[in-house]
């Protein structure tokens, strides 16, 4: 297999294909007639997924360096190069994206009725943006894809959404953009600092990694970057856009939003926050606040989720609870914690993605999301009920499903460095059951009393094809997570060692306010080719 890949030097064009093929597909879909666009979009996403599969075997878990990396000059005077690369952290997030996308497109065949062509074009543009964010190694390119991703999501929520879709779309857009603007300022600050020290501009991830920052600078930049990612995660106080966005978004929109977009925040913490600002990310006060928000995310949103009348809003709050575990795992700064965070992100993608697809199918049947409108459906739709219960169990972290592995690892990781935080976090397990089981019972069990519920059709073949891979993923990650853990092992250990080294012996401390003579030429930087 690897021989074949070397033969077509897969490593060279793989990432480019993954990023730009959906864009090409988008134009294809826009030009295709209305009826064909649906199937064409499915073909494009399937090809994208098939091409992305070899990434895993071809990925060499031994080294932590960026693989499949290529660099092309873009805006040379400003040091902006088109740099892309993949390592343990971003490998599975890319695979999650390409895995979820065809399922979402297939899942939305019957859901989206008006203006299908533009809808599928938006989905493909979204895929380009997401894959771009995960593989970009040039902060400018990263920021560009970060913003590109917002636009299609805004339209998906805004056009095909529910009643308050405009409000939700605007809120989503403004919330995220507000955060990312601060991030842009932080990026520029670092670039100019780099220029001050070495005389040329560079947006490269590895170059900016070597920029020495005083403790105060790190705190401010940490806050700037952190806010952008905290909004995206979403971390506790910045989460209010998520329930609105989910309730109003069409099913495929909220599947992508939940399964992939939320991972941007976690990815951002891992890729940018920890390595760039080691002192800040280990400062007791800052970490304390973030962990407190994470805990609030787990406990508070679980409680709020339990009393939601609308099923989709309930699941939206549960995503905030899940991502609370991610934050806990990341800021524990232990191997188990980070790997646990990775697994929670993957399992959340599968389980919450599946849950939204299921709720979408329920919506297709009864055109309502109120939990009270259902009751006793298990008698009418046994297969639907089975898949729903499996997904619910995976999302509350029943051992043997993917949820447990992730939560258990991140709790263990957090316990090693912050025992009390892990203790409170573990109670999230109880509240998970507290919000999920009543919902399952009110929808599936209890008496089948409403007449319109008595004739609902069970899962169609298409729906089974959409759900089967997701359920398989949940069981697979739960029963045999070894391949996922091994692939991320070295990258995460490398990340932790760099954070540890730079925390103890930071590079020479030259603040911007140091006299120019002292600054010039002090920093010898191994410029990336």
């Amino acid at each position, binding site marked *: 297999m690897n021989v074949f890949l070397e033969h077509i030097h897969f490593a060279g064009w793989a990432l480019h294909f993954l990023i730009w093929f959906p864009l090409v597909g988008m134009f294809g879909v826009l030009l295709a007639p209305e009826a064909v666009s649906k199937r064409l979009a499915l073909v494009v996403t399937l090809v994208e997924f098939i091409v992305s599969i070899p990434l895993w075997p071809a990925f060499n878990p031994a080294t932590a360096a960026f693989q499949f990396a290529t660099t092309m000059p873009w805006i040379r005077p400003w040091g902006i190069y088109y740099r892309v690369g993949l390592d343990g952290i971003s490998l599975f997030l890319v695979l999650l994206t390409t895995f979820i996308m065809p399922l979402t497109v297939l899942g939305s065949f019957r859901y989206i009725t008006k203006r299908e062509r533009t809808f599928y074009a938006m989905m493909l543009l979204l895929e380009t943006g997401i894959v771009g964010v995960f593989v970009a190694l040039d902060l400018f390119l990263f920021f560009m894809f970060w913003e590109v991703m917002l636009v299609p999501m805004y339209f998906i929520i805004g056009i095909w959404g529910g009643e308050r879709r405009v409000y939700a779309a605007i809120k989503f857009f403004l919330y995220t953009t507000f955060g990312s603007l601060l991030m842009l300022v932080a990026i520029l600050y670092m670039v100019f600092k780099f220029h001050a020290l070495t005389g040329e501009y560079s947006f490269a991830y590895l170059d900016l990694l070597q920029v020495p920052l005083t403790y105060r600078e790190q705190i401010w930049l940490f806050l700037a970057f952190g806010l952008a990612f905290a909004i995206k995660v979403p971390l506790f106080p910045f989460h209010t856009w998520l329930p609105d966005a989910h309730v109003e978004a069409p099913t495929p929109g909220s599947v992508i939003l939940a399964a992939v977009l939320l991972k941007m925040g976690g990815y951002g913490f891992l890729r940018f926050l920890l390595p760039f600002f080691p002192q800040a990310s280990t400062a007791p006060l800052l970490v304390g606040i973030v962990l407190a928000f994470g805990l609030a995310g787990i406990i508070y949103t679980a409680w709020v989720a339990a009393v939601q009348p609308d099923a989709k809003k309930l699941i939206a709050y549960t995503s905030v609870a899940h991502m609370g575990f991610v934050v806990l795992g990341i800021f524990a700064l232990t191997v188990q914690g980070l790997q646990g965070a990775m697994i929670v992100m993957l399992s959340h993608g599968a389980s919450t993605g599946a849950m939204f697809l299921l709720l979408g199918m329920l919506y297709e049947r009864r055109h309502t999301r109120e939990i009270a409108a259902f009751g006793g459906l298990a008698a009418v739709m046994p297969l639907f009920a089975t898949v729903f219960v499996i997904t619910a169990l995976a999302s509350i972290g029943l051992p043997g499903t993917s949820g447990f592995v992730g939560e258990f690892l991140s709790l263990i990781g957090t316990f090693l460095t912050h025992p009390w935080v892990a203790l409170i976090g573990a109670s999230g397990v109880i509240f998970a059951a507290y919000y999920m089981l009543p919902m399952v019972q009110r929808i599936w069990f209890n008496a089948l009393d409403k007449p319109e519920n008595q004739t609902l059709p069970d899962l169609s073949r298409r729906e089974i094809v959409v759900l089967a891979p997701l359920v398989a993923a949940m069981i697979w990650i739960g029963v045999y997570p070894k391949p996922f853990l091994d692939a991320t*092992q070295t990258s995460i250990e490398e990340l932790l060692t760099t954070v540890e080294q730079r925390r103890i012996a930071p590079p020479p401390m030259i603040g911007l306010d140091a006299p120019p003579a002292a600054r010039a030429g002090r920093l010898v930087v191994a410029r990336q080719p």
Partner: protein
Amino acid sequence: MTFEPTLVWAIVLLPLLGFVVNGVVALAAPERKIVPTIVGPAVIAISFAIALVNFFGMLRTGPETAVIVPGYTWIPSGSLQVEASLQLDQLSMLMTLIITGVGFLIHLYSVGYMHADKGYARYFAYINLFVFFMLLLVLGSSFPLMFVGWEGVGLCSYLLIGFWYTGKVNADAGKKAFIVNRIGDFGFIVAMLMIFANTGSLSFQSVFAAAPSAFTYGGAVVTAITLFLFLGATGKSAQIPLYVWLPDAMAGPTPVSALIHAATMVTAGVYMVARTGVLFALAPVSMIVVAGIGALTALFAATIGLAQYDIKKVLAYSTVSQLGYMFVGVGVGAYSAGIFHLMTHAFFKALLFLGSGAVIHAMHEALHHTHRDWDAQDMRNMGGLRRYLPITFVTMWVGTLAIAGVWPFAGFFSKDEIIWQVAARAVGPFRGWFTLYWVMALVAALLTAFYMTRLMIMTFHGKSRLPDEERHHLHEVPWVMYVPLVLLAVLSVLGGWINVPAAIGRMPVLGWVPHAEWLHHWLEPVTAAAERIQAANLPALSETAPFGGGEALWALVSFAIAVATIVIASAVISRVEYRPALESAAPAGFRRVLFRKWYVDEIYDALVVRPVIRASRWLWRWIDQGLIDGVLVNGAARLSRMVGWFGSRLQTGQINTYAFAVVLGVIFLFLFVFPRLF
């Protein structure tokens, strides 16, 4: 020569295969009952056979250390290497035999009991899945793998309790069971976190090897770990704080109650305490707590059992009480006594539950014919059933005598063993505590005998309270249901003879049974480490009970109590004039407090459930929508709109205002040009 485990993974995976097959049938063709009828019990039977083969292999070779059957690496993350492998030693072997053995009998029984139910295939799928998770729990070689089984059985009990999910009561009972179990599992998870943090591993072998050095005797850490583990045990084995789900779990089919809520799942907590005996031995405070809660539960549940009218509720509280006994046993450090009672209890409690299932089944068919809406489970509607259900009557009496602790039956030996161990170990720091527990255990034994006799008298003796047109519809249950009853009755008698204490063996009348203390020696390799620690830190066992008298004497006393109580109870109960449930008056005074289960459910509801829901609603409305959404997010929007509005007010459209603005401009201009004007 060393012991060679054979096909151990098959024991575990066969029930899973059964689950898959039955599951597919349940979804695809639920009406085809032949498949689950064969696959369901057959899968368990094969597992039982393989277990027997391994058991005899183990008997022959008698391995000193546990045998690890390798599987695959489950979670390799940095220093945490969790192996998915099975551990076969004397303790897990015994538990596997009980699970597969009693499980098989109950599967057989279910064929008869559930044949009329249209969810037949689904039932067998769930019950097979349950046996799979229970075996995984018992055979797991590390804490996380045990936890997979731990929550898996919780899931299956959730599915099986809420089996007839169309009834809201059943679905609620299932939900309650799962959430209460989850609270216990929280304790288990925290314990696992602490164990890993202190010993660097989670597999039993290395944790117990490292335990004596990693923890100081009676230290805070090991006490915390054991208490959290015990919190998990109380959740799963329905002890004082978290027992409320078990009585409600009677909403499920009776074989489920027999298998899950009597024989296997609820004993998981006792097994876990026995398995982690080393940790508990290192924490005397935890031992006191475990034994204390055990004794308290035994007494408390027995009192409630006295006043219940639903036959399954009585048995449920009896189970909670007997579990209390087991925890007293393992709590005081007598692990083999605890496990011995666990085994005998599995036999006679399964027998009693299946017997009550037979009674309910018969009553249901009778009431079904005449469509009279009487409760088929309420003892006040029964009476005089001995003429119609002879086999059930005899086997139920065997079970009652066993549980009451009458001489030749299993209960006598296992319960007496525990009572004696409590008395013997009431030395050194435990003197006061264990003496108290010993007295409570004796009183609970008396109450057990009383409520079981009350159950038998009300159900089988006296004259039938059923109207006569139902009476002639009452007939004995089919063979597939009473054969397991007979087998379990035999086991309820023989089961006790495998571990007859030496002291009793030497007594005149009571000594006629073959005595070998076989089980104690059988479990020696497993409990050796824990006993070594206890021997090192505690004074030797005393030969006499706190108020004098040897083991033999107190065995005689408890036997006498049991017989006396049965005689008195039957006299008292048969004289009481019971009327059918609908006409009989509601219980009053103290009996009502007992009948309403000391109002524990209402207290929990008021103190925990409702405040949490109210707090959630408050949080959502005020914090999420109010503070964050309202003030901060929409607030910012409103603020910008307000500034815009204020700006627009300035544009009055009249020239004067603009002229005025110009004038102000001029003035400021002057001030700027001639700063020294004032």
